[in-house]
């Protein structure tokens, strides 16, 4: 517990003592705003945040791996990983501390989009359900992407490689359910496999959050997936360490 808290605090502080967090927040807010207004938000004449949440999966696919790529790759490159593991901290504590610190930055980024909520409230009388669940879905989605990014960051000391692999990994989960991909897979994979791929889709689950539906199995899906990738990160840290 102590190891976890100290790593969490150090990580969180390091985001804000370097330009990293500020650059990330500004780019995220600009990009999310751009995506909303580019889709004719005002002409739609609807007091809803549908278009805002619609952009999240695609926006996160690049921004979350950008934040996640440094998690372990940087520690390995600067060899601070050797320092970190000379302290009485277990790999699981370190991985969880790093993950939660990064997720906190993402939560802050989402929280800072409040002017969007204020705008919708000012212009009309929105249905609160989809807004709340939309934020919940975005937060869970960000966590899942982040866990994927964290795993790929463990594998290499090169941040660019970590980034590219993480984007590819996230893209797989996002596109898994889309019709074009499913049609293609249906022609190449056996039927059972196609169903498995469909179950793994982020897109359809995120859409139900967007509509205001919170189903236990959707929440459980994201939580389990996140936990799974995090566990894989812990294993990868141990393995890579043993290999030098």
């Amino acid at each position, binding site marked *: 517990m*102590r*190891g976890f*808290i*100290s*790593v969490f*605090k*150090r990580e969180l*502080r*390091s985001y804000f*003592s*370097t330009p990293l967090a500020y650059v990330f927040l500004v780019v995220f807010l600009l990009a999310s705003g751009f995506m909303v207004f580019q889709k004719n938000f005002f002409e739609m004449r609807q007091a809803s945040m549908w278009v805002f949440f619609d952009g999240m999966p695609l926006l996160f696919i690049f921004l979350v791996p950008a934040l996640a790529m440094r998690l372990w790759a940087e520690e390995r490159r*600067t*060899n*601070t990983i*050797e*320092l970190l*593991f*000379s*302290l*009485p*901290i*277990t790999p699981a504590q370190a991985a969880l501390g790093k993950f939660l610190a990064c997720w906190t930055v993402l939560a802050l980024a989402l929280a800072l989009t409040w002017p969007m909520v204020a705008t919708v409230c000012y212009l009309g009388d929105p249905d609160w359900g989809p807004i709340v669940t939309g934020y919940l879905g975005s937060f869970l989605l960000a966590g899942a992407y982040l866990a994927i990014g964290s795993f790929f960051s463990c594998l290499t000391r090169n941040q660019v490689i970590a980034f590219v692999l993480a984007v590819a990994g996230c893209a797989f989960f996002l596109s898994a359910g889309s019709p074009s991909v499913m049609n293609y897979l249906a022609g190449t994979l056996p039927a059972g496999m196609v169903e498995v791929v469909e179950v793994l889709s982020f897109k359809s689950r995120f859409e139900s959050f967007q509509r205001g539906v919170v189903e236990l199995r959707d929440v459980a899906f994201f939580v389990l997936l996140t936990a799974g990738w995090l566990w894989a990160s812990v294993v990868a840290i141990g393995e890579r*360490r*043993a*290999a*030098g």
Partner: protein
Amino acid sequence: MIEVKELRKAFGPIVAVDGISFRADLGDVLGFLGPNGAGKSTTMKMLSCFLAPDGGTAGIVGHDVVAEPVAVRRNIGYLAENAPAYDEMTTEAFLRFVCEARGITRRKRAEAMERIVESCAVASVLHQPIGTLSKGYRRRVGLAQALIHDPSVLILDEPTDGLDPNQKYEVRQLIKKLSKDKCIVVSTHILEEVDAICTRMIIIDRGRIRVDSTPNKLREEIGGNLDAIFRKLTTNSDEPSVAGGVK
């Protein structure tokens, strides 16, 4: 306090450490000598539980490095090669992080900080980011980090490498001062260092121990100065000395 038996580590086909055994007790300053790539750093990484050994055992204050890594880390201070530290943190924030991770309570923290800032002479750079420090100060911050919890076992990987003569002298004085109530292992390839601070020396080459003795005894037995002895022991083999250097 340190007991190593038949420790072995290979990276693929390269055997970095090939069955070494030694022990060190309280009051020992054990000099770990060898050419570059001899397996010094790999051995130290295994002692500090960073690398898992392929074979053999190593115990620190009675705790096994494989079975109880966290207990081992609690009891040792480790300065890795090139003194890695988080560049964006200030010295003070960095040391506070190490205190926290080591579970030094708030009350004792002030005391520990005061003691370490004085003994490692880092007061003037306390509020400077570590990335901006000179090599010498960086090394001192690394030492401060390794000493802050007053461990009984210290493992220092080339603590004076790259320092100027004054800084080398200071670090050696510090190690000497500390040696009374600790067990210290220092790796180096500087022979004068062994004479200056070590009570015992081990010469390791291509993953094997060539000599386990004291500097004085060695001079008596083999004759000549340490430089000559070192060269004789680490080059008198029929194969060229190109054992794998592993980072």
